[in-house]
């Protein structure tokens, strides 16, 4: 093979996938932007492009509540998922021994049942007369005449469960790769277990935490299945509004505008978070976050 042909090889390998992603991921974003600036209605012969910037303010008015709620629910779910995931990932990576593969399998097992059926299973678990709710009542976590289903708590619980593997896997990957001799070294230098954890383990696994937080938070903000199935009328999230604008009311321009506003809000939150987390590790860590 001569030099010029050799240089073309990577582009040939990359080509089909890159074209697919550009045509069906990048270009659609452009069309969604174009859709967001159209006006008209389906009844009067469709929508035409008119630089209709008012779609953005229109789509937001009356839906601020759902937008704020999405971020609150997704944020809570992310924090709870982190609290559940870190010790679990730690146990699997460093303590599980021969049980490691089995535990890892249990973590990804939910992926092999349909998302929708899983959420419906939670509806069964959290139903008013279920044993699980009786236990919560017995522990006085839920008032005697209270219910779990159709509350914000149920939606957050659903989000937490459904996105938990995305939190566990990157943290597990970063713990797995860590050189455990560093902890031993810290202890040799008379650090307590707690101190070794805070000074050594936590900073080393920070990129895994950052990746996990983003992979949980971003999809959770846009989710509408949990709010739909587990929430009541007062728990709608911005995803529910977008979904209904697109598929029921067929007000495509406003739906597209609201999608963009949600994306913009997510980008702002993510930028602030990455700034605070003080690491650009997300790009590299993504690799492990399968």
């Amino acid at each position, binding site marked *: 093979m001569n030099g010029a042909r050799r240089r073309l090889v990577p582009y040939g*390998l*990359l080509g089909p996938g890159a074209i697919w*992603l550009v045509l069906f991921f990048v270009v659609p974003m452009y069309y969604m932007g174009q859709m967001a600036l159209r006006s008209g209605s389906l009844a009067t012969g469709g929508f035409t492009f008119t630089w209709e910037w008012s779609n953005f303010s229109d789509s937001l008015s009356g839906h601020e509540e759902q937008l704020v709620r999405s971020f609150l629910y997704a944020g809570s779910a992310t924090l709870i998922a982190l609290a559940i995931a870190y010790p679990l990932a730690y146990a699997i990576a460093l303590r599980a021994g021969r049980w490691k593969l089995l535990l890892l399998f249990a973590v990804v097992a939910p992926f092999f049942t349909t998302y929708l*059926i899983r959420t419906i299973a939670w509806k069964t*678990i959290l139903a008013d007369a279920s044993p699980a709710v009786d236990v919560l009542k017995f522990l006085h976590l839920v008032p005697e005449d209270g219910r779990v289903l159709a509350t914000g708590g149920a939606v957050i619980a659903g989000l937490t469960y459904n996105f938990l593997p995305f939190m566990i896997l990157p943290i597990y990957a970063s713990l797995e790769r860590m050189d455990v001799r560093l902890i031993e070294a810290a202890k040799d230098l008379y650090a307590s277990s707690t101190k070794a954890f805070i000074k050594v383990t936590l900073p080393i696994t920070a990129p895994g935490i950052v990746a996990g937080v983003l992979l949980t938070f*971003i999809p959770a903000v*846009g989710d509408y299945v949990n709010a739909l*199935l587990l929430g009541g009328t007062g728990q709608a999230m911005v995803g529910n509004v977008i979904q209904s604008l697109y598929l029921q009311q067929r007000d495509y321009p406003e739906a597209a505008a609201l999608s963009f506003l949600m994306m913009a809000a997510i980008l702002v939150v993510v930028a602030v978070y990455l700034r605070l987390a003080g690491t650009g590790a997300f790009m590299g860590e993504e690799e492990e976050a*399968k």
Partner: protein
Amino acid sequence: MSAAWAWLRRNALLIYAGIAVLYMLLPIFVIALFSFDKTTFGRLDYTWSGFTLDYWRNAFSETAVNDAMITSLQLAALATIVSTVIGTLMALALVRYQFRGRGASNLLIILPMATPEIVIGASLLSMFLIYGLDLGFTTLFIAHVMFSISFVVVVVRSRLIGFDRSLEEAAADLGAPPLTTFRTITLPLLAPGIVAAALLAFALSIDDFVISNFNSGTTETFPLYIFGVSLRGIPVQVNVLATLLFLVTVIGIAGVLWQQHRAERMASIRPDPEPIATGG
């Protein structure tokens, strides 16, 4: 007493892991359990009313459920084949070659994974609407390949990074043309990564509801069917098929893992490749 306490303290983390894993598996258990539920009208009603094998005996008697499952399986199979081939080629390019535009390609692969599904679904729908394309199996196929590619690349790439290239070099030294080397050396060594990526793509496709909901038209996949009937009442057969699907996938994965384990043992039998270098 203090011995018990010490044992508890020492194993607290593992006990916690056990509880957390039970929590992860709880809904799967509930799905399987309720496939044996004796409900009055053959529809799930979220309460346990007795054990029956009826729905397992008549697992395939609800034609609508079967049709949706068949559509899902066809779609997942096609999307898996295409996305696995395309994604593997991309991973090869990214790991093996230095070229202009690598950073941009990486970004192109990462972004879809960091975009909420609803935005991917909505933007594709916007494009299809503007071009007046009919929604259906084709648009679903386009969407499913699109969101699977990134995951395939990530999985295959992680396998490629730790790849021992000496065997390939040996083949080349012995005069094998590049394509023969690729077919007889690279591909078999890469196979476990490719199979893992394909499994993931399959799971993602058969699982997807949000993106499909935007681009399906009147075509009904398994999740879309469930969503459609969830207000009227879900046939118990849905749980039966979901449980079956889970079992088949688990057995498949166990098979792949076992194969991988065997391959690694075979590889470890090989003599140490660099016995001289150890002295140096």
